[in-house]
């Protein structure tokens, strides 16, 4: 248990730079309760900036040390203290009303907290159970912890062809930093303690969404949504597997939430923070990069339709920032001729696509089936589609936002289907894993429901709306 406490304490250190980032972005609430409510968002922001600092410097020969995150964290805190940006004029979370309902939500979150604690302890006893986690991600973690990228054997040797060498390094760097900090040796059974970070990220996701929901979305609905998501069997399995899909989904979804919040409030800090979160998602997994691009592209398209040229430029700038955050790793990979299971050239070649058309139907069935399976995501994707459908059918003021969320979900689904279609390994090796590839879809579904609740004005004490 000592190792778990140490790792939680270590990760709590990410709160300080996280709050500094919020302050620099002008998003740090002025009230004490607001600061407390922002803890989830601050933790995720802190992890993102500290890990990104490592990941961006790794290809330049920097080792994985505690120095880089320490320098980055202290610099951010000092900058925040010097600049002292004023708090946002309108804090995000509303107090909400209905004390009984609110207590029920708090009770639900408390139950969830107990499950988290038990899950962490259980995970400690069964370290690294998923094949990809121990065969692919942990060797990278251990190599980074000892050699950084100065020893490239793992990435270029044919002996390691199965480790997807082209996948980015945010997760191994995150875990390698913890290994260094905690003094965990190679091959140690204590490696299982790295599970704790996944549970913290899941809990922080709930906190971030509750904070970002805004005054016009119901506290009760937001509470139900985060419990619903976190308790879904597919998410629980992810949290216990130490696979990268859950953190990628979380950073992607919070980035998308920040982006749609920016559409409403147009505060520059929101789009800067969205770039950090989407950049983190892009550095966690190749699918995260594709998802970050489609989220930005869909938003730019929506803004272009609305003839908001300045908005298009801002999101375009954000996309460039995301690109810069992944550029060092991509250049390093290109210089070392790293290839994965997916070739962009094949994916855009009509002859190749037609020749592999037999993969399309099983792919669509597997991915849609994973979304529809109650034992995976407990109807969350269908709920998001139903809410989007209701808004579109009514042609209310939120119809544009509903179409934007539909664009996020449809384009993510399309990109994943395309990836299955053009990948070279046998389809059977993917289909059984379809559920975890849809984790980001489920997380984006939660964002869609919450944002449409905000746009539709579903508050705890709603004024009777006009009948449409």
């Amino acid at each position: 248990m000592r190792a778990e406490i140490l790792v939680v304490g270590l990760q709590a250190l990410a709160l300080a730079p996280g709050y500094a980032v919020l302050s620099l972005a002008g998003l740090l609430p002025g009230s004490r309760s607001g600061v407390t409510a922002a803890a989830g968002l601050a933790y995720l922001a802190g992890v993102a900036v500290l890990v990104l600092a490592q990941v961006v410097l790794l290809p330049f020969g920097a080792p994985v040390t505690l120095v880089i995150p320490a320098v980055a964290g202290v610099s951010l805190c000092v900058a925040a203290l010097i600049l002292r940006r004023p708090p946002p004029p309108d804090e995000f979370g509303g107090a909400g009303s209905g004390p009984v309902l609110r207590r029920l939500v708090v009770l639900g979150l408390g139950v969830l907290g107990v499950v988290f604690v038990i899950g962490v302890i259980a995970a400690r006893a069964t370290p690294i159970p998923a094949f990809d986690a121990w065969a692919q991600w942990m060797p990278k973690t251990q190599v980074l912890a000892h050699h950084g990228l100065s020893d490239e054997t793992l990435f270029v040797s044919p002996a390691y062809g199965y480790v997807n060498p082209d996948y980015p390094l945010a997760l191994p760097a995150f875990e390698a930093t913890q290994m260094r900090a905690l003094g965990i040796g190679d091959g140690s059974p204590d490696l299982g303690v790295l599970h704790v970070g996944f549970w913290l990220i899941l809990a922080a996701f709930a906190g971030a969404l509750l904070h970002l929901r805004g005054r016009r979305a119901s506290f009760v609905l937001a509470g139900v949504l985060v419990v619903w998501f976190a308790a879904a069997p597919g998410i629980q399995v992810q949290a216990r597997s130490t696979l990268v899909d859950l953190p990628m989904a979380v950073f992607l979804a919070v980035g998308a939430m920040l982006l749609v919040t920016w559409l409403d409030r147009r505060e520059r800090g929101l789009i800067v923070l969205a770039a950090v979160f989407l950049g983190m998602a892009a550095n966690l997994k190749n699918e995260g990069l594709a998802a970050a691009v489609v989220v930005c592209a869909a938003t730019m398209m929506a803004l272009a339709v609305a003839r908001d040229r300045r908005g298009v430029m801002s999101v375009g700038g954000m996309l460039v920032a995301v690109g810069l955050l992944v550029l060092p790793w991509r250049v390093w990979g290109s210089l070392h001729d790293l290839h994965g299971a997916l070739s962009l050239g094949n994916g855009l070649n009509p002859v190749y696509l037609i020749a592999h058309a037999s993969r399309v139907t099983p792919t669509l069935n597997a991915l849609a089936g994973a979304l529809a399976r109650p034992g995976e995501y407990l109807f969350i994707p269908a709920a998001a589609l139903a809410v989007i459908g209701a808004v579109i059918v009514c042609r209310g003021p939120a119809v544009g936002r509903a179409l934007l969320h539909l664009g996020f979900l449809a384009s993510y689904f399309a990109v994943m289907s395309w990836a299955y279609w053009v990948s070279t390994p046998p389809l059977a090796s993917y289909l059984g894993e379809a559920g975890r590839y849809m984790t980001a879809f489920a997380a984006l579904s939660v964002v869609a429901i919450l944002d449409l609740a905000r746009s539709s004005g579903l508050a705890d004490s709603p004024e009777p709306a006009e009948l449409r």
Partner: protein
Amino acid sequence: MGALKLFAETLGLLALGVAARVLLARRGRVHTLPVATLLAVAAVGAACGLAGVGVSGKRAVESYRETRRLTDDQRVTAGAAKVSATLATRGAQDALVPVGLTPTWIAFVEWARRRVPVGDTFEALLSRRALESQVAFWLNWRMSPRNAVVQRDDADWLIVMDRRPPADVPARSTVEFRPGYSLVEVPDAR
């Protein structure tokens, strides 16, 4: 089928929204269809969420009870085990062994890991039986950050599993774990 099922679920939840709107209107509370659908979704979500918390909590407790008494050696072999599904019906020791690996292989890999210094490289020489299992992946994971190579010239060590060592290796460089399982320091590698 998957897409149809998702479509049917979506329509079902939308129908719940319509029903909620009608019911609320009859009670004098007028809401738009999106708001009524959100209320219906919240009700479904609350039910699913509570059920999910119960199921997940139960599984976590079971998993904890079944694995808390494992030794450190048993914990490191937990790799590819389907812990939650198999522990209830199989002995913990069997269930925690990765698919296709034998206890001898696992013990040998741990033995070799303690003898090969970090930073050295190794070549794995495996029998056909070992190659057909997950032992190569397992070996690479447990040996990391010692790197696997595929050329003898690049290797500091040979890890020989379930077969004879190469004939051109001097006997004095070989340490045997059990017959058929040995670790060979490659001459002149350093």
